[in-house]
């Protein structure tokens, strides 16, 4: 395997969890809901995915369990914020804190155990082409999913009535309600989709990225996914580009170190976080770009008027 090939492959693996989690949150936010619990849903997806795969021996069952865990967590959030109308910021935070705690408890029994790695989907002939084969056709199902989902989301959002309804609910929930749309139900759906994607992202971490369970193994990726959504200005295609940029930064540290450059490892490890801050500064400074696509109702609870 050539060096370039290895670099590209690691960029893909580093970007995939960010992309998965962020595309789910993008849909949630498009419907007008800010779910800060991505980190918590992701880590629960990771631990449940690992535990299921380890117990059953099937990585695919693990993926399903990760997805389910994300959805269950997101439904807790949805019940509080949509039915009980609690603060979305505070509830999202508590979802993250709960997820981190719960995953630690569940995962304790699985720490240090050998994991089940998600297998690469081997496509005859195509996967065997040198260089191009491994890069384009040598991945597991979640990598393909991480690319297919944003394209599907873009199609639904901009080409279908469902997408129009989601944008409408996020843009002006009172108008949507007046036209007879069930705002709460649409939002429940979008929150569940966000949870499912975060769960998949977590499952990717514990079944493919590093196939084992390590406490807090999401290490802030959920938060970076949230920043990515802002960075993408809520556009799926821009989100894909952004996720790969961030993924590149994430693994850059490893390679710079491997080259023997005398930079403290900690500085390199902090690069993704610093780059996230810089990205937020750049995009937030551009008012016209952000304001046009920002879902106008984001973070606001919806109570039907009389």
């Amino acid at each position, binding site marked *: 395997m050539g060096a370039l090939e290895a670099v590209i492959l690691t960029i893909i693996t580093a970007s995939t969890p960010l992309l998965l989690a962020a595309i789910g949150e993008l849909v949630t936010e498009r419907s007008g809901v800010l779910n800060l619990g991505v980190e918590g849903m992701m880590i629960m997806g990771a631990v449940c995915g690992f535990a299921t795969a380890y117990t059953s021996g099937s990585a695919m069952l693990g993926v399903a369990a990760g997805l389910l865990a994300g959805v269950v967590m997101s439904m807790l959030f949805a019940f509080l914020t949509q039915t009980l109308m609690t603060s979305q910021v505070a509830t999202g935070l508590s979802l993250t804190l709960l997820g981190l705690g719960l995953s630690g*408890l569940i995962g304790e029994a699985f720490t240090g155990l050998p994991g089940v790695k998600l297998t690469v989907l081997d496509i005859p002939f195509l996967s065997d082409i040198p260089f191009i084969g491994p890069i384009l056709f040598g991945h597991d199902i979640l990598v393909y999913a991480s690319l297919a989902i944003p394209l599907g989301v873009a199609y639904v959002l901009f080409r279908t009535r469902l997408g129009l309804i989601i944008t409408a609910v996020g843009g002006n929930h009172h108008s949507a309600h007046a036209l007879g749309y069930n705002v709460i139900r649409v939002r429940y759906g979008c929150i569940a989709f966000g949870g499912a994607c975060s769960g998949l992202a977590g499952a990717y971490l514990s079944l493919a990225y590093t196939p084992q369970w390590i406490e807090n193994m999401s*290490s802030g990726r959920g938060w970076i996914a949230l*920043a990515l959504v802002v960075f993408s200005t809520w556009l799926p295609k821009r989100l894909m580009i952004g996720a790969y940029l961030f993924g590149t930064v994430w693994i850059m540290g490893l390679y710079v170190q491997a080259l023997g450059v005398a930079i403290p490892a900690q500085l390199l*490890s902090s690069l993704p976080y610093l780059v996230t801050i810089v990205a937020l500064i750049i995009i937030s400074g551009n008012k016209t770009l952000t304001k046009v696509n920002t879902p106008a109702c984001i973070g606001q609870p919806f109570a039907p008027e009389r």
Partner: protein
Amino acid sequence: MMIVLEKRSEQSKAMTFLSPVLAIGLTVVIGGFIFTGLGLDPFKALYIYFIEPMTSIWSVEELIVKAAPLILIGAGLAVCYTANVWNIGAEGQLTIGALFGAAIPVYFTAWQSPLVLVLMLVLGAVGGALFGAIPALLKNRFGANEILTSLMLVYVAQLLLDWLVRGPWRDPQGFNFPQSVPFEGWQLLPLLGEGRVHIGAILAVVAVIILWIMMGRSLRGFEIRVIGRSPRAGAFAGFGQKRVVWFCFMLSGALAGLAGICEVAGPSGQLQPTISPGYGFTAIIVAFLGRLNPIGVLFAGILLAISYLGGEAAQVELGISDKTAQVFQGMLLFFILACDTLIHYRIKFAPGAGAAKEA
């Protein structure tokens, strides 16, 4: 059946106090079920968790040691959240505060004077405030979301600490352990009594009292409350939102920094790669459980400290993971948010079909 919320014409004062009680009750009940699920006697487990930490002098002292930083940080966060300023990076501000304060014993190892202690505390607060000022600057100047920036900075601060204790600040006589020189004499916080309780506890109580007066009586506190409830009305009143963002971040940062230096100059006595068991995050729960009220934070801080101690006790006596503490804390925040709905709404159960649907 479906749940219908009916808005109260005014907030329920009774529910403001009842909601946390209800939330604690729910957490205990669910906790009992979890313990039962783990095959334990739920009553015994709950006793060990929540009551035992308050039955001996030793554990009460330990309780105070753990409650002090939670209260210091939680009181500052309560002010932030009242203003709708979402500082969730207190853990990072705590870390930087500890680093600023610890710079004195690290660089002036032999210096002994009461001034050292004062300087360390002041530097701790300054460090936390400056680190807290970064997200404030980014929000005010560029409109960058403070939730994300303050959280990102936690990772940066922890990596900086890690680098220092493994690199330039490592104790040359420390057998290559990742830790700084041990602090001595005036570099350590004076103890109250025989045990481990240090003056950090007094600082926490003083901070609570000052913030309580500020929030309840002063124009500054009024400004913060108005901006939090209704920024537009705040602008109409002539209050500057940006000024409030600066103030809240620097205040809560300073208090977190103070908590940080109190940790390293108190229980730890030196810098280590990890200086807090997540106080900065747990303090978020403390702030909400304390109704964003400084006095409430005092009680909430003690309660959350109990959950830390209970977690340790449960690990020793029951052989279960101390991670249960974190789960309890997360659940508690969930329940308190859910119960707070009762402050603003009455809950009614309506038959699912046919009747008053707001769908």
